[in-house]
Structure formats: C-alpha cells, structure tokens
C-alpha cells in the first residue's frame, strides 16, 4: 500500500475518532428520528425525506465546511513537513486529502440518511418511487461532494484555516441563497433542494440532470485546479 492510502486511512481514522464526529452523528440522527416520528401520520415519505436531506445543505454543511476547509491548511508547517519529507509526492498528499474528506462526508451522510429513510419507510406508506428516492439521495450526496471539494480546494489555496472556512461559508451560502435570484440556479444547492420532493415521487426532469452535471463539473474543476496549484506552491 502506497503513501496515498496511508494518508487516506490516517486522515479518516483521525476524523472518525474525533468528538466532532460523535457529536454531529448523535445530533443528526436524533433530529431525523424526531422529524420522522413527529410527522407520523401527517407527512409523506417525499416531504419527510426532502426535509431531512435539506438539513445537510443548510445546517450540517457547517460541520463539513469546518472539516474540509481546514484539511490542508491546518497541517501546514511542521506537520506537513513531517509527511512531505517522506517518500510522498505532492499529488499523493493532496489527492489523499480530497479522497478522505469526500469519503468522510459520504459515510456520515449515508449513516444519517439510512436512519431517516429506514424509519420513514417503516412508518409511512406510498408517495414515493424507489428509483426517485435513490436519485434524490445521490443528488444531495453530490452536492456534499461539491462542498467538500470546494473546502479542500480553498484549504489548499488560502493561507490559514480561518480564512478558508470564512471563504467557504460565504461561497456556499451565497450559492444557496443568491444564485437562484441571479439566475444561476443550476449551481445552487437551494435550487437543488426544490427538485427533491418531485424526484422522490419519481418525477425526473431535465433540471435534475443539468444540476447533477453542474455540481459534478464544479467538483472536478475544484479538485483539478487546487491539485495543480498545490503541485506548484511552496508548502
């Protein structure tokens, strides 16, 4: 196993052993259980799942912003020197950071979403399409991947973790709130959430594909540009 996997595994172990992760998972699962039980008999699967998934874009994005935007900048100095002075290339290091933070976002998202969807399907009936439900979950997962890649990218480019976190907060919430107004809805997580209720019910539209493609493109561009920048910069 090469340095890439060694860094991915070490980073993931560190993240999953942190108190932030325990606290976040407990809070997120608790809120989803309360939401599902509270809506029992009155809500539909489509409404409850859409509302549960939107928590990730509006609230839990804060945790992901903090963790992704500090991934590289928090290690600059002696800690990065300790790793980069070994037989590690720049690409090994930065791609490992992208991989571990994306994996972390997806694993935590999957755990909380599994509780939400599992409980919801057990208590409620009808008003959803299995393929649509999976597509909705994947679409939100893609938005979180975009958030994470933007975070790691800013963490590479910015001189400190605080600057990177502030920049990502501004960027993410601008995308969520202001982009739809500025007719850039394709790149707006807020706009993406408006597609979820219909999607869960099985209504696929061209907008869904376009939004998915736009988020995927931003993720790829962010990863490629920041990796190229990290390759050339002094650490």
């Amino acid at each position, binding site marked *: *196993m*090469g*340095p890439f*996997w*060694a*860094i991915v595994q*070490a980073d993931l*172990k*560190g993240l999953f*052993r942190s108190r932030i992760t325990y606290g976040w998972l407990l809070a997120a699962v608790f809120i989803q259980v309360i939401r599902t039980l509270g809506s029992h008999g009155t809500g539909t699967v489509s409404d409850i799942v859409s509302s549960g998934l939107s928590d990730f874009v509006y609230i839990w994005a804060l945790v992901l912003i903090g963790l992704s935007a500090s991934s590289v900048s928090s290690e600059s*100095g*002696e*800690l990065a*020197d*300790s*790793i*980069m*002075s*070994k*037989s*590690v*290339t*720049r690409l*090994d290091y930065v791609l490992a950071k992208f991989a571990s933070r994306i994996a972390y976002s997806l694993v935590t998202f999957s755990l909380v979403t599994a509780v939400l969807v599992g409980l919801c399907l057990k208590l409620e009936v009808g008003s959803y399409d299995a393929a649509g439900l999976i597509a909705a979950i994947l679409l939100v997962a893609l938005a979180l991947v975009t958030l994470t890649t933007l975070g790691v990218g800013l963490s590479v480019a910015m001189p400190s973790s605080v600057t990177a976190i502030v920049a990502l907060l501004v960027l993410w919430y601008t995308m969520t709130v202001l982009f739809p107004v500025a007719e850039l809805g394709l790149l707006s997580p807020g706009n993406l959430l408006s597609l979820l209720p219909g999607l869960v019910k099985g209504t696929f539209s061209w907008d869904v594909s376009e939004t998915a493609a736009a988020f995927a493109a931003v993720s790829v561009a962010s990863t490629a540009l920041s990796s190229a920048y990290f*390759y050339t910069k*002094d*650490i």
Partner: protein
Amino acid sequence: MTNQVIEAENLTKIFDEKLVAVNNLSFSVEKRAIYGFLGPNGAGKTTTIRLLLGLIRPTAGDVRIFGERMTPSSSALRMRMGYLPTNPKFPPKMTPITYLDFVGRLFRLGSEERKNRLSELIRAVGLLGDSAREIGGFSTGMLTRLGLAAALMNDPELLVLDEPTSGLDPSGRKSTLELIEELGKEKTIFVSSHILGDIDRVCTSVGVISQGKSIFSGTIKEIKKSIRSHSVRIEVEGEMEKLCTALKGAKWVKGFEKRSDFALDIEFDPSTAMADAVKETLGLVSAQGLDLISVSSSSSSIEDAFVKLLRDEESRGFLRAT
C-alpha cells in the same frame, strides 16, 4: 562517482519577492560526514533545510542530493533521507506504534519490515514503556525521540536534523548527541543548530550562515584556526598585582587586561612563538609564588569563532554599504 552527498550551488530563496531568506548559498557535504550548519536564529537554516528536502523550490540555484537534482517531486530521493524538524508535530491521537507504522507506509515499507523496524526503533529511543500511549500527552523530549525514530524508519543514508537538541533537558541533550555520534559512523548527517557546543562536540565539518549567506565552510579545526589569536587567559590564586608588575617588563607581552581578581587576559608579541610566550609567562607565575588555576586560549571555543565570524561579516557588510 561523486563523494558528495549534498551539493548546494548558488542557492537563493526569496519569499513573496520581499524576504531574502537564503542568498547565493553554496556548500557541499561529503559522504559519512557529520556536517554542522550553524547560524543565529533567523539566519535561514530551516529554509535551507526545506530546500534540501524539496519542500520548497529555490528562487535561483540548485540542490543536488546523491548527485541528483532535488525537486518537490523527488520522492525517490527522499526515500533515502531522514528528517527531524525543529519541534516535530505529530497527530495527537496516534501512539508511537501507529505513527511509526504510518511513517513506514509513507516509505512504502512492507508490513513485516515495518513491524521489525518500529519495534527496534521504539526500543532504541527509549519509548518502549510509552509505545501504546497517545502522542498528545508526550513531553518535548519524548516528541524529539519519537521524531528521531521516525527519521530513521527508512534506514536513511542521509539524516537531516533541524535543531535536534532544542527544548531538551541536559540528559536528553546528551543522549541525543551520543545517538548522533553513533549514527554518524554509518550515515551522512546534516545537523543545524545555534547551540555551538553541540556542533563542536559531534560535527566533523561546519558551515556558518548569517542573514542567508554562507560566511564559513570547513572543518571544526579550520574554523578555530581561522580566528586563532596570540593571546591566553590565565587564572591564578595569590597576589595578582605582583604578576601584573612582572608582566609590564616582559618583552614577549604586548599587553594584558585584568578580567577579575584572579583572571588575566594576556596578549603576546607576535614576534615571539606562542609556545615560548606561554612557557615564559608560566615561569613568571611560578617566580611570583602564585598558584596556577588554569590556562586557556581565549579563542579556543567555537563560540568565539562563531561570534568573530558574525562580527567580521557585519563589518564587511557595513563597509560594502559605505
């Protein structure tokens, strides 16, 4: 094949087009040498080390390690190097075992080799009793020892140590220096420090840097020789005034200065051989009935050599400016 392990040629590093951290620095380190890299704080030692490791790119000039050009992509070259940063930082939740295993994986070592190597090193640096403890609770000395173990994980041919005794207590410092001496028998070691006694004790050759520029490169003997002066300090017990009166009439003495009630710096006439002048002076001490406590060359220590080099460089800089 070249015998030079490190070759730095006209190395220059300018940060943000403002700060000249390293200025046209050239030096080389031979195989199996313990090379001391001396300089005051902020002289550019750590920047030079980061250039040697390919962590940053030079603005101008070149670094060659084992005859090959070092760049940030030279992971194969770094495979043959070990590095201990000043005040090394570690993931606090890891234990020495998990950290060294992680380092072994960064060096692409196999599982069996990693296990053997880390257990050997943990024992060698005296961390066996703490091998399952989280690193977060370690003292500075323990962190330095763990850093040394990590630097040796790949059994490197070249070891780069940045201020290895910084923050250590006297016993930690002594054991670290002994370890460096021991390692120097089979490896090339580049050790930066501003603690001159450490360099004097372990190094075979030395480079002195000030404000990013090399101001001396040679052996320890050469650096001391370069500032040799024709003077001694003697310490005696008894009536110092009698000795001072006697020295006034001595033709081999150019001048003297009382440093304390029992210490005297004597400068000899350059036309008299040093050995003869010392012999005659000791004869005077004996003739005055004084008890000799010690005789030392006032320029025997590397501290004096270092301070003199820095002072000379400062005055040269002033002359260049005027």
